[in-house]
């Protein structure tokens, strides 16, 4: 058992790899009544091409990771959700672009629900009939998000921005792709992505760590796992240009909204480099497009921006974006406003220190919630980053870093997406 303590955050976690190859991490939170346990695989909506150990490329139908998440809750012994409620534990799961996570929380003893979590994730038993039945539920889910303006706007923005990258697909896929998914395809996805050696179990709890490791070891020692398939996601060569520069879609809504998104082409290889650049860009944008800037009040008074206005920065492996969103029926004026302000944006040393202080406070606060803390840990680990380091990356940002990152913004390489009536 490996013990890692961070004095500054006053937090300790323990880690151990059990016999099956599953890495188990216990984030020890003395004084907490409840426990949250999360098991994750680095298989999400963006993994649409995988390469196995023999070099074979496997095409994954968009929406498969999410479909699989739905189907893992099925068992021959009965409904899994019912079994969790019977022991007083609340179970759920989510699929993002990067990962699928199954989790429960409970204030009762952790042994039974932890065993149930490890059991159901280790066993996919589905029938063709049950796969067909699930399609109706997933299609209703897709339609629900499609008629929510903000969710649809983000999806259409990604669809406009990316040519090859799987971000152009919804995490849940499309009605067509979901309809085409078969039992055999889900079983293949499961085989490639759910081996214990590929997964990570994180338990945030007040319980003694030794007990959690013992429970995980005991549970997996009764199971047999096939040889671990070596799988990696195939890197996508995303072109520099956007897929469509302008796109409008119609929704029956009152409030019209637009996004203006700049495609960022970068060559940062490591997660550390990307996050340094992402923070640098975020701080520069924060200094300009937030209440730190005295002009912000005038922009609001003049109706250039609304209270809905905001921005997102995301730099990942092989992609990058800077997205602005606003409530407006005049996307052209919004676009011009952004171009002018971005070209003159700046940040002072004083503002940089002010923002670092803000985000340091946020880092401390993020350690209050068991589930949030565990999810952050999973994401840092899958991105090959150190969890505690990732909390304070912002502190290392210099004015020079910020000056350098400006160069990746190309004002001509953008897409504009609008909701129309």
């Amino acid at each position, binding site marked *: 058992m490996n013990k890692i303590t961070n004095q*500054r*955050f*006053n937090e300790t976690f323990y880690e151990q790899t059990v016999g099956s190859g599953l890495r188990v991490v216990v984030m020890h*939170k*003395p*004084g*907490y*009544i*409840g426990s949250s346990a999360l098991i994750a695989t680095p298989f999400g909506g963006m993994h649409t091409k995988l390469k196995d150990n023999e070099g074979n490329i496997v095409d994954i139908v968009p929406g498969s990771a999410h479909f699989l998440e739905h189907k893992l809750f099925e068992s021959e012994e009965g*409904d899994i*959700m*019912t079994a969790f*409620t*019977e*022991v*007083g534990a*609340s179970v759920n799961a989510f699929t993002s672009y990067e990962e699928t996570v199954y989790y429960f929380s*409970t*204030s*009762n003893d952790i042994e039974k629900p932890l065993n149930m979590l490890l059991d159901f994730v280790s066993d996919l038993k589905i029938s063709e009939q049950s796969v067909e*039945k699930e*399609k*109706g*539920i997933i*299609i*209703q889910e897709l*339609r*629900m998000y499609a*008629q*929510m*303006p903000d969710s649809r706007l983000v999806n259409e923005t990604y669809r406009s921005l990316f040519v090859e990258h799987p971000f152009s697909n919804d995490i849940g896929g499309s*009605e067509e792709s979901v309809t085409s998914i078969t039992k055999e395809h889900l079983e293949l996805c499961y085989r490639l992505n759910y081996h214990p050696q590929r997964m990570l179990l994180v338990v945030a709890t007040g319980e003694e760590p030794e007990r959690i490791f013992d429970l995980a070891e005991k549970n997996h020692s009764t199971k047999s796992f096939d040889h671990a398939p070596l799988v990696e996601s195939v890197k996508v060569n995303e072109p520099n240009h956007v897929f469509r520069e302008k796109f409008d879609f119609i*929704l*029956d*809504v*009152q*409030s019209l909204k637009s996004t203006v998104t700049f495609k960022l082409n970068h060559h940062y290889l490591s997660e550390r480099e990307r996050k340094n650049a992402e923070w640098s860009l975020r701080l520069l944008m924060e200094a300009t497009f*937030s*209440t*730190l800037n005295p002009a*912000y*009040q005038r922009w*609001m*008074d003049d109706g250039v921006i*609304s*209270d*809905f206005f905001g921005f997102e920065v995301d730099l990942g492996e092989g992609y990058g974006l800077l997205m602005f969103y606003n*409530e407006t029926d005049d996307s052209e004026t919004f676009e011009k406003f952004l171009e002018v302000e971005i070209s003159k944006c700046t940040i002072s040393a004083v503002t940089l220190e*002010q*923002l670092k*202080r*803000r985000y340091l*406070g*946020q880092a*401390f*606060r993020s*350690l*209050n*919630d*068991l589930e949030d803390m565990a999810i952050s840990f999973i994401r840092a680990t899958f991105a090959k980053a150190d969890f505690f380091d990732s909390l304070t990356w912002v502190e290392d940002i210099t004015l020079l870093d910020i000056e350098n990152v400006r160069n990746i913004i190309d004002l001509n390489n953008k897409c504009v997406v609008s909701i129309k009536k």
Partner: protein
Amino acid sequence: MNQIRIHENLNLNIIKTGKFKDISFSFRFLSVTSQKDATIRALISAMASDRNEKAPTKVDMTRLSDQLYGSYVDVRNTGYGAAISTEFKTKVLNGKFVNQSAILDGFFDWMMDMIRYPLINEDTLKEAKKIIRSILVRSMDNPMQFAMKKAFEIAGKGFPLSVNIQGTLDILDTISMEDCRNYHQDMIENMRLDVFVVGDVDENEISEMIKSSFLFRKRDNVETMYRLDVGDFQSVEMLRKMDQSNLILIYNPQVIPSDADYWPLRVGMAAFGQLPSSLCFSEIREKRSLCYTIGAQMITFDGVCFVYTGIDAKQADTVEKLIDIQLETVRSGQLSDSLIEASKKMMINSIRQIDDDSSAIINYYYQISLIGRYIDKEAVIADIEKVSAQQIKTVFAKMTKVTKFLLKGEGTHEQNNESAI
């Protein structure tokens, strides 16, 4: 919890705990609800969270907030039956993590300025009106949220249930600066005030800070719980160009939290439609794939319950009939013992987990104080454990369906899976 009654209807509640990284403060002002009051409160909330007389610009506010490691005051309104509460909620990082033991002093002054001296003038009112208008218009674009609001308006006509806590567009423009100033003054000086502090604090120090900040005078209390009249059943349909439809069914058992059959109703509701193993979820979603979202909730202080779901338009009648059948299952005493026990376990689990979340702690103890029936959590848990199948059957006999609201999608998609009851 240490409860200190500072004066009549001015209560300070301190929950001392060292497990969080920060200290949470909540100030809740309570008065009788009306649509005009709700709209004024919405405007005050927008202005108070934006600026105050000591920090008259957004830039000033942001600078002060960042000095306190990103503390901010969230001002929000919540309906509690016949009453409305405006909460000023904020958190400050525990000074020991950043070697600043005096951080609480500066924070307290800043927080009290936010509460007592919001900047209310013609300019800030104009901006607040613009923001509230945007929020109201935007909320109409979320189909489920819109459907729920409409259903509450219909079912609660002439009662507090129909009040939109975010305000209404038709009243918004009639509110003057004087209305807001007078209302705010009345709030600070006369309305019932409950203060909650959660964190590692010196109870005497906090008590003195609060005592020195508010006038020692009798404050007005108001009734919160009421019973909505059982009127004639109303069915209303609205059309919208979208693929999915939203169905809301409202039931009026006239049971409020001070009633003896309140916990039997809550346990029965969990089994009927709140848990993933509930009748509605398993029969309508899991067995028949007719929806992705379905759930049941109580509007505690108004004594009513409702079911919400997102479905295909042509399945609306089928789904309604299926919900009726599930209700009848509970009414006729056919709920399984295992589902009842699971419902109790999950409710008790949620109550125990409250201790791990400072906002949940505050919400829980505030509701308990408004209900006036319990002193501690163990008494609530004991009452939940005592609930019998017969009590659930008896209280569900009082469930009268009073409203059906269908926001009907006119989309072109049709779901393939036909379903028979």
